């Protein structure tokens, strides 16, 4: 059977032209959408470097007359100063990242490689948190934190975040260990490695992609979380960035300074975007794991 071309050759140049026009149209759609998606963030960042008077002008102006960081300086005058809030957010996020990595890696290894009684029930229990929204247990968590004197502490908030991250982390790490062939582990053990040494030196390297994925999610979720931080942190000096910015907006510090607010939003958004652009591959792997809690 011979395959005949769908279109006679006479028309081929017009077909190619039409295809070309189609591709250009698709690019135009892509670019217009890209502008729509980037515009809010771009506009906020641009406003943050306008002189304060222009940032708050009514009606808004388009381009800054000069570029200045005055809004950032003004932002630093709110409450305990922006550096303090960056420190709070970063500390909570880093404790969450390390705590989640340690607990998930250990548990993932245990669930993947060992057999013990009640293993499946314990695994389901750890994962159950994926199905139950944390919003419904915040009141007892708040009371628990108060009871152990950890309300209003960075560590207390980080512990709450670690709890929220554990189901995804353990699931991810169990799967990561499952993909490492047992032969590698056995070879290391036969060479005289202790179980512990084997876990730290051999396995750690092999499951590193999984660890990075867990870390990226832990960081972003801890850095961005709003409701739990709002409830647990009642003392102004312990606010995380989103809570502090909400206070600026609600006039907690007097009239709303729009320029300073944009400086704050830029400071909050920037680390997330950079981290995502650098580690996009790992982030997407976590998404494909199919067990992401939005």
């Amino acid at each position, binding site marked *: 059977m011979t395959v005949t071309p769908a279109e006679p050759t006479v028309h081929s140049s017009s077909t190619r032209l039409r295809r070309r026009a189609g*591709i250009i149209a698709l*690019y135009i759609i*892509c670019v217009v*959408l*890209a502008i*729509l*998606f980037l515009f*809010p*963030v771009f*506009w*906020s960042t641009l406003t943050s470097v306008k002189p304060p008077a222009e*940032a708050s002008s009514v*009606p*808004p102006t388009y381009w800054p007359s000069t570029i200045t960081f005055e809004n950032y300086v003004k932002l630093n005058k709110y409450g305990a100063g922006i550096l303090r809030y960056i420190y709070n957010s970063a500390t909570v996020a880093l404790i969450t990242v390390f705590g989640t990595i*340690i*607990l*998930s890696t*250990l*548990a993932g290894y*245990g*669930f993947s490689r*060992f057999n*013990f*009684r009640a*293993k499946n029930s*314990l695994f389901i*229990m*750890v994962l159950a*948190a994926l*199905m*139950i*929204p944390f*919003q*419904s*247990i*915040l*009141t*007892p968590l708040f*009371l*628990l934190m108060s009871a152990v004197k950890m309300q209003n502490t960075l560590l207390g908030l980080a512990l709450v975040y670690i*709890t929220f991250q*554990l189901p995804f982390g353990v699931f991810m790490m169990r799967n990561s260990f499952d993909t490492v062939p047992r032969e590698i582990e*056995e070879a290391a053990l036969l060479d005289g490695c202790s*179980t512990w040494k084997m876990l730290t030196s051999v396995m750690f390297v092999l499951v590193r992609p999984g660890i990075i994925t867990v870390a990226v999610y832990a960081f*972003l979720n801890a850095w961005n979380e709003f409701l739990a931080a709002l*409830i647990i942190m009642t003392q102004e000096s312990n606010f995380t960035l*989103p809570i502090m*910015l*909400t206070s600026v*907006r609600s006039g907690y510090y007097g009239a709303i300074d729009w320029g300073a*607010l944009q400086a704050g*939003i830029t400071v*909050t958004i920037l680390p*997330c975007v950079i*981290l*995502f652009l650098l580690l996009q591959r790992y982030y997407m792997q976590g*998404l*494909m794991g199919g067990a*992401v809690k*939005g």
Partner: protein
Amino acid sequence: MTTAQSTVGPARRSTLNRRRAFAGFLFVLPAVLFTLAMFIFPLIMTMWMSLHNWPLLGQATFLGIQNYVDMARDGQFWSSLWFTTLYTLLVTPPIFILAFALALLVNTALRGIGIFRTIYFIPVVIGLGTSSLLWVWLLNDRVGIINGLMLDLGLIEQPIIWFVDRNLAMFAIIVSIVWKTVGFSMILLLAGMQAIPDELYQAAMVDGASYWQRLTHIMMPLLRSTFALALVLSVIGSYLAFDQFYIMTRGGPQNQTITAVYWIFNNSFTYYKMGYGAALSIVLLVILGILSIIQLRILRDDTTY
């Protein structure tokens, strides 16, 4: 594994196994303890608290099911529930239609399409609280650029004050949420699309199927389970909405935009009626459980390829 162990006697093997089992238990223990203390215990405590009058300070008193009985007469509870349902019903279709269109777009073989895929996804990694603050400013009637642009283009004569009217506020919040979350569903759908074997499309093309036919007869049926996952995640997320309303409307005007979680928050942490807040939480949990079961039932995956 078997060769190494076969030289060991049965008694010794069982001690070894037991020691190994114990080691495994030790590995999972920290995570298990954490889950017990910070998740299972609070969950049980929520149920326990829901049967009490539980103030922030002072003694809790046992009420039985009184909190649940009170709910029936709590007008704000019903209107919050209805408002949350309405919000979920209104925000889900635009997210899905746009996410599907975007996924089709970034699934094309255009050169550099990966850059656009990344750009459309960026709002997802921004916090919901931060993005809500961003949109409050963009939509502001005095300094906001959206009103400014519309005025300059002559689309409106007066700035629109978005957050003083329930319907306008709903519309504004939906726009901001679609911007913030559509990339997430887009990526899920894209992954589903890329999992469909190319041969299926090629076979259909040989049979003379048009692009539209390939879309509706091959891709969409095979994406059922992906749709189900994306839908469940999106509906649950919308049902738990809090940040955007707390920041953008503060529940106003006249408490008309108070969502279910917002009402729990107000009871537990503004009025400190923590027992009643716990009872509301339990009801929300039950509703979400029923919702997920229904959705998974409707969209249950029975396709194979």
